[in-house]
Every structure is written in structure tokens, then in C-alpha cells.
């Protein structure tokens, strides 16, 4: 078991290292001088030279790469050109919005999808199944920003229960901050849970056809008990895989929803940094997003091992 984890951990670190090289190289081989790109074509040569100096662009590539890596390890990520604040501070500030939003959305997604998916599978080819699948189809087909706007119209404009957008900040008003995340989380969860419910349904249906579910019934378990005790855990592998992808997606910031609700999240940060050509921020945020995906995949790998004992033996 521990051998498996150590091996996965090594693979995880190797992936992280490889992605850092790719991200660094891609931004390195971009045509043109980064300082010039950041300042624009009309910039004074003096200003460009000063920025080159400040960014340390005169130093050899490998030195800059290792400096950058070291920066990640020590939390010293350099300074944003446009915001004139340390990139780390900028990212942490944005994560305080994006991470809770992703967590709430993922929690809603998981609860809705597992309940709906298992229910649909248990009522396979009967009205309950059709109903759930109809809603899932609608959820997938509906653009989430449009659904977000509808939620704003109903709950903020008509009923006045929520603010239409904005984010007060956790220090100033934690409850209002939480409320500010609810509508966007629901808009995100609608689409994600529709997808996940379909995956759950088909996975549970597959498992229900397995011999061991019949064995469980032969032991005297009711259909429902056989499904929950013997079916669900086996059905979880594909579900957990999709959940990992969804969580990675949500954590990377959801540019459109963040814009609809005026949330200062990570998605808006990268959107703004790209439009303002703030390459320092872009490079760090992209690396962070990639790292999050790799970390989530690593966690999912570990979850597989928890779910399925057959994966515990090192092959």
C-alpha cells in the first residue's frame, strides 16, 4: 500500500516538474521582448530597459528558471507589474474567493448528482429515471451564465434575498461573503451536477448488473441495501474521476460566472492579467492552475486506492 503511494507521489512530483518546464519554456519562446510586450510598442526604450533590469531578464534562462522554481518553494513570486503588489498576495486574495466558491459548488454538485444519479438508476426505465434524465439534459444544455442571470433576476431583483453581485470580503462581513457566493455556486453546480448525475446513473446501472450485487441479494439484502452496500462503492471510480475534473475546473476560476456576479476570483485575475499583458502574473497563475489540476489528480489517484483494494498491490 505505502509502496503504491510513494510511487504515485514520485510520479506526481515528476509531473509537476515537467509542467513547470513547459510553462516556463512556452512563455520564454514567445516572440518579442517580455518587457516590450508588457509596456507596449510605444514604450520608451529607457522604461523597457528598466523593466528588463527589474525582471532580471539579462540573466541566463536556466538561472531564471531555477529562481522561479525557488520562488514557488519559498512563496516569493515576484511582483505584479500592473498591480505593483507581490503576486503571491494577489493570488491568495483571489483564492479566498475562488476556493470557497469551488468548494460550495462542488458540495452542491456532489449531493445533487449522487442523489439524482442513484435515484435514476434505481428507477431505471421508469418515470423517476426519465424525470431525472430530462432535468439533467436541461442542466447540461443550459448555459450557466444565463441561469446565473435568471437567479439574479429572481433572488436579487424580484425577491431581494441576495445581492446581485460583488464580494464584501471575509474580514468585513463573513456572512454576506458567504451569501455572495451562494448564487454563483448554484449556477455552477447546476451544470456540473447534471453531468455528474448522468455519470453516476450509468455507473450505478453497470454495477447493478454485476454478479456480486446478485450475490448480495441472494444473501437476503433488499434491492436498496444491495445497491447502497455493494453497488455504490464499486460505482464510485468513474464518478470520482469526473468529480476530480470538475473540481479542477471550478478551482481554476470560472471566468464567466465570476464576471456575471462581479466576483474578484482567480478567473478574473488571469483574464485581467492577460489583457494587461502582466506576464509575471500570467506565468505564476498558469503554473498554479496546472499545479492544482496535478494535485487533484494525485488526490483522485489516492482515492482510487482507498475505494478499490485491488489497486493497493503494486504492479
Amino acid at each position, binding site marked *: 500500500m505505502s509502496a503504491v503511494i510513494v510511487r504515485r507521489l514520485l510520479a506526481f512530483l515528476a509531473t509537476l516538474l515537467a509542467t513547470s518546464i513547459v510553462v516556463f519554456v512556452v512563455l520564454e519562446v514567445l516572440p518579442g521582448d517580455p518587457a516590450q510586450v508588457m509596456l507596449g510598442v510605444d514604450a520608451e526604450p529607457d522604461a523597457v530597459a528598466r523593466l528588463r533590469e527589474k525582471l532580471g531578464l539579462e540573466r541566463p534562462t536556466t538561472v531564471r528558471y531555477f529562481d522561479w522554481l525557488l520562488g514557488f518553494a519559498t512563496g516569493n513570486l515576484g511582483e505584479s507589474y500592473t498591480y505593483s503588489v507581490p503576486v503571491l498576495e494577489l493570488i491568495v486574495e483571489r483564492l479566498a474567493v475562488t476556493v470557497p466558491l469551488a468548494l460550495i459548488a462542488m458540495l452542491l454538485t456532489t449531493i445533487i448528482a449522487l442523489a439524482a444519479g442513484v435515484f435514476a438508476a434505481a428507477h431505471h426505465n421508469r418515470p423517476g429515471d426519465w424525470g431525472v434524465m430530462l432535468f439533467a439534459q436541461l442542466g447540461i444544455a443550459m448555459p450557466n451564465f444565463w441561469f446565473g442571470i435568471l437567479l439574479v433576476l429572481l433572488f436579487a431583483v424580484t425577491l431581494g434575498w441576495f445581492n446581485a453581485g460583488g464580494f464584501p470580503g471575509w474580514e468585513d462581513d463573513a456572512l454576506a461573503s458567504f451569501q455572495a457566493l451562494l448564487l454563483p455556486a448554484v449556477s455552477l453546480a447546476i451544470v456540473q451536477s447534471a453531468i455528474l448525475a448522468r455519470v453516476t446513473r450509468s455507473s450505478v446501472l453497470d454495477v447493478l448488473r454485476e*454478479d456480486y450485487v*446478485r450475490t448480495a441479494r*441472494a*444473501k*437476503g439484502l433488499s434491492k436498496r441495501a444491495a445497491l447502497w*452496500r455493494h453497488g455504490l462503492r*464499486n460505482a464510485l471510480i468513474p464518478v470520482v474521476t469526473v468529480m476530480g475534473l470538475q473540481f479542477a475546473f471550478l478551482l481554476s476560476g470560472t471566468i464567466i460566472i465570476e464576471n456575471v456576479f462581479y466576483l474578484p476570483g482567480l478567473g478574473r485575475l488571469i483574464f485581467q492579467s492577460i489583457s494587461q499583458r502582466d506576464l509575471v502574473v500570467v506565468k505564476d497563475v498558469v503554473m498554479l492552475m496546472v499545479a492544482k489540476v496535478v494535485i487533484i489528480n494525485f488526490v483522485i489517484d489516492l482515492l482510487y486506492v482507498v475505494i478499490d483494494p485491488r489497486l493497493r*498491490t503494486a504492479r
Partner: protein
Amino acid sequence: MTLLAVEGLNVTLATDAGPVAVVHDVGFTLDRRETLGIVGESGCGKTMTALALMGLLPEAARTAGRILFDGEDLLAADEARLCSLRGDRLAMIFQEPTTALNPVHTVGHQVAEVLMLHRDMAETAALAEARRLLDMVGLPRAAERLAAYPHQLSGGQRQRVMIAMALACKPDILVADEPTTALDVTVQAQILDLIGELVRELGMALVLITHDLGVVGQVTDRVAVMYAGRVVESGPTEAIFAKRAHPYTQGLFKARPSHAGQGRAAGTAARLATIPGLVPDPRSPPPGCAFAPRCPHAIEICRRPPPLVAIGESHDALCHRVGEWT
């Protein structure tokens, strides 16, 4: 005394192409401590019959007839009643122990679960009993194996676990559906002996489903031969081995590897006889006797439904021409 009486059992599966009858008018009885073999080719309806006994037919199945267990009609019983009988008084062993065990639960837990369900045992007590059961079925190092997962055991060991699970509550009837077919030849005899021994020891009745007449001869008191969803011949095992009345039973005997050729070394065994033709498609059964298209003795009259002919003491065959040839 009669423990189980199956009367006029019909099973029909709803398919996209309309209902398909897979079990026709099957009847047999089983006394306490009696062992019955149900023999036939794949697709003859023997597994469907077994699943009907357990109330575990697929949802698309419709049934008619009666299955009287201790006087109670199982086909009319509700699901809650069946759940309380299954695993407790009626137990089943399946063909493929690899897929019949849950890969994500330990062996000990899977055996203990039956006891916790029907005997209201606490988990520790149930696990202790599971250990005793695994010992009883001859699983080596049973105490350690409680925490093992099915993939850590061999095929034979998995089937021993299945047997322990089925016998946990000392059922009145054990239904074993091809319990040795998926196992290595060397293990088959061990598992079969184990089942035979335990059935005698615990005083259970056994319904053994198999395509292997050798297995039937070793273990069972009575035999029902099934073909295309019907019992075509039934009677005491000895009587049927002495006098096979139905041409299909005769064909099965001829198709059996002879004891002389049991060395199984290539080239030493004589070529086995086969029954020409295929099992009829249940969607379009032939008129009259279902075996007629493959029968060497079929004549015009065989196109009409065959009568049940008494051959001897509780030995019957479903054939127009019993005794008309030697």
C-alpha cells in the same frame, strides 16, 4: 417429507422482440436432505429455474405456476418475505466465484454480513463465526484470510468463501448453479466433494445445476434433465443411469467423456460423440417435441406435443416414442 414442490413453473422474459418463454411447465419435488441434479446444455433454462427458486429472476421476467417451499408459495410471496428467506433458509452458490464476490469488501465481512443480517449478530461475533465457517470449508489460514480481499485468493478458495457464505445460516435448501464449471479441473473434484460432504453433514437439501452428468452421478439422489426450458426426463439418479429413456438423455450420456478416456491426455481419449444441431431458438420453438429436430428417432408424430410417460418408480420421460427402440 416434501420440502420444495415446483408445480407448472413457467418463466417468460420480456424482450424487445416480445415475450420469450424460457422455462415451460417445469415441475419437481425435493424432500428434506434430498439432492436433486438439474442437467442440461447452456440455455436450457436451468439457471432461470434456479433463480426462480431464489426469487432472483431478472426484472423483465414474468412467472406462472407455484413454488411451494414448506407449503408457502414463493412466487406469491412479497419481497420482504423473500429477503428474510434468502440467505437464511434458501441459499445459492454461483458459477463464477471471481465475479460473485464483491471486490471491495473483505472476505470476512462478506461472510459475516449474512450472519449480521439474519442472526442479528454483532460484527465481532459474526466475524468469529465467519472464521469458523471458513475453517469448515477448508480455507487455509482462515483467521488471516478474514481481512483478505477476493482478488488475493485463488478461484477454488473464492468458491470456498462462497460456500461458507451460503451455508452460514444452515439453509434448508442450497441451490448450486454450476459451482465447479469456472474452476481448474484439479480443484473441481475438491469443491464438489466439499459441497456433498457439507450437505450431508448439515442435513440440507441440494439443487445442483450442472451440464456434467459425472457430477450428477457423484452427488445427487435424483436427476431432472432439461431441454429447451422443459424437464424431458426425471427420476432417481440410479434409475436414469441404468435406463435412459429420453433420446436427449441418451445423447448427453454419449457425449460424456468416458471413464476410460479420463486421462485427458491429447490423443488418448477417443473422439466424443456430439448431439448434432443446436438448441432451438426460444423465440421460435419448433412445434411439438422441442428435441425432434435433433433427435435420431424423430418421426411424424413428434411434431405434436409429447406426453409424459412413466418409465419406472417416479421415473418419467417426455417423449412419444419411449420404449419403441432399444
